[in-house]
């Protein structure tokens, strides 16, 4: 095992989209039990430094593996279809229409209730996109098409984040 191993290699998981979150969590904790700097607090600086490097690397892999969107974009990248969101901005028309409708609802939403409803809408759009990703990455083995779905999902998540921030302000 090397610091440069892929996230999947590091966690000894098959490189595919479908993953069991509970299993990822268990592996993460098992790895951190070996590598966390706290285990080496009584040892010298060299051991501390190595532990810090590995612990950081394990957390990095964990962040990517546990989050379906990050995991999907990582898989696309490994399969030669990097996301490059800034260079690939073309989106299907119906998707753009839906985005505009959401933005309008967000402008108008002035109660926590309205914002919660909007969050539910984004959440079902998210579930649909994740199902598409599972199909494209694990069954059809089409990373290029998957990368397109990832880019759309990035919009959805960014929007959901804005809704949540608005909720924070309303409830604060």
């Amino acid at each position, binding site marked *: 095992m090397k610091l440069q191993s892929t996230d999947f290699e590091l966690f000894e998981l098959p490189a595919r989209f479908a993953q069991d979150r509970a299993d990822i969590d268990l592996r993460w904790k098992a790895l951190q*039990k070996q590598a966390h700097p706290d285990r080496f607090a009584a040892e010298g600086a060299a051991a501390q430094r190595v532990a810090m490097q590995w612990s950081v690397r394990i957390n990095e892999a964990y962040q990517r593996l546990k989050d379906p969107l990050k995991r999907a974009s990582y898989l696309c990248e490994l399969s030669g279809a990097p996301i490059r969101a800034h260079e690939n901005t073309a989106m299907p028309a119906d998707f753009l229409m839906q985005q505009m409708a959401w933005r309008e609802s967000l402008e108008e939403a002035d109660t926590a209730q309205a914002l919660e409803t909007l969050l539910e809408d984004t959440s079902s759009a998210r579930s649909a996109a994740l199902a598409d990703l599972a199909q494209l990455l694990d069954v059809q083995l089409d990373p290029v098409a998957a990368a397109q779905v990832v880019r759309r999902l990035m919009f959805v998540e960014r929007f959901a984040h804005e809704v949540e921030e608005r909720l924070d302000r309303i409830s604060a």
Partner: protein
Amino acid sequence: MSGWRRFIPHRMALLQISEPGQTPDPHQRRIGVGIDLGTTHSLVAAVRHGVAECLPDEQGRVVLPSVVRYMEGGGRQIGFDALAAQVQDPLNTIASVKRLMGRGLADMQVELPYDLVDQPGMVAVRTRAGDKSPVEVSAEILATLRYRAEDSFNADIDGAVITVPAYFDEAQRQATKDAATLAGLNVLRLINEPTAAAIAYGLDHQSEGVFAVYDLGGGTFDISILRLTRGVFEVVATGGDSALGGDDYDRAVADWLLGQAGAPQSLSPSARAELLRQARQAKEALSSQDSVDLTLSLDGVEIKTRLDRATLAHVSAALTAKTLAAVRRVLRDARLDKGDIQGVVMVGGSTRMPLVLGAVREFFGQEPLTNLNPDEVVALGAALSANQLVGNRGGEELLLLDVIPLSLGIETMGGLVERIVPRNQTIPTAMAQDFTTYKDGQTALALHVVQGERDLVADCRSLARFELRGIPPMAAGAARIRVTFTVDADGLLTVAAREQGSGVEAHIDVKPSYGLADEEIARMLQDSFSTAQQDMQARALAEAQVDADRMLLATQSALDLDSDLLTPDELQHISALMAALHHTRQADQSADAATLEAATQALAHGTEAFAAMRMNKGIQQALAGKNIATI
């Protein structure tokens, strides 16, 4: 094992090094203490005979009021004596200093009974003994607890875990660590108060599942969601308010008292201290009775009135509501519903208020857990952690996976924040982002590091500024500057910037704006502080000796376990470095600290590759051939 024999001569040399009496006995228990440095009071705890317990003072009291009084003639009172003098000598008696840690005058939203002076970086308190930094005042409290622990064990302390509110930012954490250093403590780790409470609670009750820790102290509020599985304490999300606590309830009561008929409209410092003292006592009394009668004498004006629970709840309703808003947000961050929470652990003296308990009960729809003493639980958890970090094995091994409470980012064009590390990221972590130049031929890039959740730099806390210089002149947008934020297990930040094409680098430990520079700490030590009587050089040498012993011992145990990973040459190299360090440590008692440090450094450097090999082996064993479900 065919090559094994050839190693024997080196092995012999190693055995000589660990002759009894020459290096510390590896089985000797080391002393690690946990310190809860609170707004209202502080405690020290340690594991003795396998059990964590709070250490009492000579009168048997475990709590030390976090109050320091500077007296005529250079003396100081710390704790109960200082607390008793608060009304009589308000300007020189500093309470609630935790609220000033890492803060500027502009941050102060509430009036305090003593005089504050604005100073670059951090506010100071003007006393008869001069201007005192909050770091110095906190160090007095920490040193008092350190002496208490040393007296209890009749030995030196090997290290301490200090707790901080989970919602403390970078500047507040750094200030706390500086105070501990100033008090002569070897800081093993800063850990978050709710996490410490969860350790004490979880280990005590063998609990598993998702728990919320609601921690309302004297001046800070934290809410953390933790997932507990055998020995692993994973913080899922944390939130709170680092300037909201029992003090604010006292002030709400005080304001109500001033609103009563006949109350004077401006108060002397003594009267203000008396008003706050009575307000606090009334609030505390209402935890066990329904109403309380008060008689106050403020600058000669007498006020008689009655305060009941309903009125207390009414005047403080906004404060309680603020805590619940933070609870809702943290649940959202954790992507959990309140129904997912298995238990709610109450921590901090302010959770004794029935109105707080009631609000939390109503919110979660379950009875909060109050079976551990809310004053002691944080110190006890810190002691359990310290015992392990100091190197004592035995018992279940703990693993704390904590998070960073507030997002970290840098300023970009137009005063906007580009977030680099989002809040609730598990630490340690390193995250990077690429930036570029915006002018042709631009050779320097100024970086402004900020912390907070808002989009505008002006609304976030400024942590540090530094410059990357020497970028080769290029067209605008052609340079690729990678900025890496590294947050260690204490939650402290280091920032590095590197131009990818030319390899030009700049690097900063984020300290200057609010923390203290090392020279300042040294000056404070020399100036006034109680440990300053010690010869500074002797202290440096003693520290270097401890480091050398620790390094020798750690290397020896690593070799005992894993020397088979090394080639004969590598083993010989490490043996030679050990022998050299051992020689410097033993043969020449008059060796100066710098020489000894250099030899320790050489061994540390020389064992780096070995440490990497050992880690590799550990990582491979972590998952190999194990049934994951049983880990």
